């Protein structure tokens, strides 16, 4: 099988092309740093199997963050048959810089100019033959949206695989001083067997730049290489020469076009405005919540009715008996309790997906950066945190794009406080019972509190664990794009599907387990579940929780939706029972507890893998329990005193 690797700057459409070619559904969104690990897929083409490799985006091979290192290491250690460098048609400069770097490293390279649809729309013309001539590679124009050029891309790749014809060979010559040094180093390593897999010129250039890995490779040859300030100077000279070359090529190869679209310019001006920026961010979030609740609620009610009828019908058909009870009171009401919220959760993802696809996310990060700076974090980590509103797992994963290890760790540890969509059902349920008419406002408050809590935690962790130092924010703002219905649907479906899968697996199993624990040895008060809840209840007495609520919290550690399933099974009809048991402040306190306490199993697992051990995962569990208890106690006590 032949391997074709896709590399390029972040956000140029590598994953989109990968998806179009292989039929995969990798995460695609309009902000830099979406892909954080290597993904592989297969495509049959003209009777051959081609393995495609999608990689995290990079600006330069002198990589710093974890995701960038993955790409660099891949190019350094693996031997794909073709390396496809993808650049953005509307902004080729930085992409061509990477192309030059890759060309210095390997021979089997081709260039893809993607998003050609956008270039056409703006009347920009690119001369393919100029590009081929000046970079010495095959060039293909593609669009992942219209599918243009995909066949040709595969044909050219196959051509390179079968004939080894990579077009011509163009070598960029650097300034005289650099060329002289390069030659000296090249001579020394010319015959080294161990280095045969690297191009001597590339090694020499990297040695001049002071690349630590290359220096290590060359150590045994005792070559006098420049260090410190000199490295810096050479690096700068090399980069300068590359951009000079790119500029001169592009002047010939492209026509100028209207850089600034007046609409997106005006939009950008408003959403990143000095004074309006932050209020607009809050307003957008509020809009997203109103959409999630008000627009989606009728659908939820419909499902609710459907599930109740299903239960009734099953009871009628199956008669009375423990099996019926297991099916109706356990499975149908437990899983059903969660399914009712599917429309809300899909709504939430739709709102998030829109934000991600339009290109607003990095702008929000930009607007909020100054505040994050006070927390010794950056706008970049804010971007990761926002993803957590959908699910904490991808939020933790996306921290790979954070270059500073300390900032990354703190972001991982505080990410679970961002309230994910799985926690939504319990908020909606309780807000619907205790704060009728103000649901959106109450839930919005919880979301804002979750951000505040995250911020406080970050400060705390920075103070206690690390001597915090501010980190830089070097981030690209992508251009605005109108999300396509297809992309949005895929986004929503991929995530919503995961939720449905959870309903069919972990929530189903939990429901059955809870039914058994709640029915034996005797139902309700004398069951195992009751024993469990009552055993821990004294701990929660100051907070005013009923033992059934305690039981729900315990089961909810598996997945937070299970809290709602447990409520449904324990209370039968929570909306008529609960108001007699607890007060609104206690309900609010409970919502906060669910928001903050122990991340779900999946999140704990991903924290463990991303931090490389149990230490931080366990820390996260204990820490979040502590925070949840403290905050909820405060709400119960203060709320109780006021009322």
């Amino acid at each position, binding site marked *: 099988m032949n391997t074709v690797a896709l590399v390029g700057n972040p956000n140029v459409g590598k994953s989109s092309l990968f998806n179009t070619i292989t039929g995969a559904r990798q995460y695609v969104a309009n902000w830099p740093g979406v892909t954080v690990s290597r993904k592989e897929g297969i495509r049959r083409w003209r009777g051959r199997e081609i393995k495609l490799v999608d990689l995290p985006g*990079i*600006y*330069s*091979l*002198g*990589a*710093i963050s974890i995701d960038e290192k993955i790409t660099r290491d891949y190019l350094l250690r693996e031997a794909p048959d073709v390396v496809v460098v993808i650049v953005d048609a*509307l*902004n*080729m*400069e*930085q992409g061509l*810089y*990477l192309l030059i770097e890759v060309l210095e490293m390997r021979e089997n390279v081709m260039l893809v100019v993607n998003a050609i649809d956008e270039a056409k729309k703006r009347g920009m013309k690119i001369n393919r033959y100029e590009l081929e001539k000046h970079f010495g590679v095959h060039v293909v124009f593609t669009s992942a949206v219209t599918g243009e050029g995909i066949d040709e891309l595969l044909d050219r790749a196959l051509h390179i695989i079968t004939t080894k014809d990579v077009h011509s060979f163009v070598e960029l010559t650097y300034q005289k001083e650099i060329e002289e040094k390069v030659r000296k180093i090249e001579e020394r390593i010319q015959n080294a067997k161990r280095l045969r897999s690297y191009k001597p010129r590339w090694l020499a250039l990297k040695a001049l730049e*002071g690349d630590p890995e290359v220096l290590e490779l060359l150590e045994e040859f005792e070559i006098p290489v420049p260090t410190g300030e000199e*490295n*810096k100077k050479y*690096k*700068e000279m090399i*980069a*300068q020469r*590359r*951009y*000079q070359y790119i500029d001169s090529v592009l002047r010939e190869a492209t026509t100028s076009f209207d*850089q600034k679209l007046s609409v997106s310019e*005006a939009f*950008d*001006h*408003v959403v*990143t*405005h*000095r*004074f309006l*920026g*932050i209020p607009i961010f809050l307003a957008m979030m509020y809009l997203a919540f109103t959409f999630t609740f008000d627009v989606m609620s009728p659908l939820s009610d419909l499902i609710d009715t459907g599930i109740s009828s299903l239960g009734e019908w099953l009871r009628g058909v199956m008669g009375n008996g423990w099996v019926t009870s297991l099916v109706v009171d356990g499975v149908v009401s437990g899983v059903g309790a969660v399914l009712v919220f599917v429309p809300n959760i899909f709504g939430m993802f739709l709102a998030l997906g829109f934000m991600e696809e339009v290109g607003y996310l*990095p702008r929000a990060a*930009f*607007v909020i*950066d*100054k505040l994050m*700076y006070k927390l010794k974090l950056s*706008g970049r980590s804010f971007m990761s945190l926002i993803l957590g509103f959908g699910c904490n797992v991808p939020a933790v994963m996306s921290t790979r794009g954070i*270059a500073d290890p300390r900032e990354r760790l703190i972001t991982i540890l505080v990410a679970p406080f961002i309230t994910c969509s799985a926690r939504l059902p319990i908020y909606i349920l309780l807000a619907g019972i205790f704060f009728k008419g103000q649901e959106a406002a109450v839930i919005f408050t919880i979301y804002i509190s979750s951000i505040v809590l995250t911020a406080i935690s970050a400060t705390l962790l920075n103070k206690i664990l690390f001597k915090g130092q*501010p980190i*830089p*924010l*070097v*981030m*690209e*703002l992508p*251009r605005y794009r109108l999300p396509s219905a297809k992309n949005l649907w895929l986004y929503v479906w991929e995530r919503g599907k995961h939720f449905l899968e959870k309903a069919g697996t972990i929530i189903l199993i939990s429901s059955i387990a809870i039914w058994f624990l709640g029915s034996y040895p005797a139902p309700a008060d004398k069951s195992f579940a009751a024993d469990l809840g009552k055993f821990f209840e004294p701990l929660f007495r100051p907070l005013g929780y009923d033992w059934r609520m305690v039981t729900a919290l315990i089961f909810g550690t598996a997945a937070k939706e299970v809290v709602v399933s447990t409520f449904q099974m324990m209370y039968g009809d929570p909306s008529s029972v609960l108001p007699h048991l607890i007060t609104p402040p206690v309900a609010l306190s409970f919502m906060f507890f669910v928001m903050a306490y122990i991340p779900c199993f999946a999140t704990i697992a991903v924290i463990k893998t991303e931090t490389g051990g149990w230490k931080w995962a366990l820390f996260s569990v204990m820490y979040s329990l502590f925070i949840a208890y403290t905050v909820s106690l405060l709400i119960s006590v203060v709320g109780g005193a006021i009322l």
Partner: protein
Amino acid sequence: MKLSEAVVGTKVKIVSVDFPPELQGRILGLGFVPGSIVEVVREAPFGDPRVYTVHGKMITLRNSEADLIEVEPVSKNFPLSMAEVGKHYIVKAFLGGPFFMSKMRSLGINVGSKIMVASKFPISITINGKPVRIGMGMAEKIIVEEI
């Protein structure tokens, strides 16, 4: 002059960059190399970070990072607030949003308009022989070039 000191809306040319090695690779790769033209596009709430355009890409930098980039002015463009009394200027660009633009239009100030600064504090200009008072905030957003 440091990049962080360049006024929003102006273009400058990079003279040198001085980043620690771990960041230098990325900064150079993004196109912040000596000789490149950088446009200061916008600033975030509280004036930090700011957005720059370099080689066609919009990049955010905190002022603490922009401090490490030494630049020089390329054009004689600057905001009206820095103009001198008695001199003639041509309006090159506006930095405001849609509201600001319509306000400018209503005052008869357009890109290409020739103006003369009659007084400062408060700023008053003459355009087509007509005197117009300009607030300090507005003067920051009108980019002019001396003629």
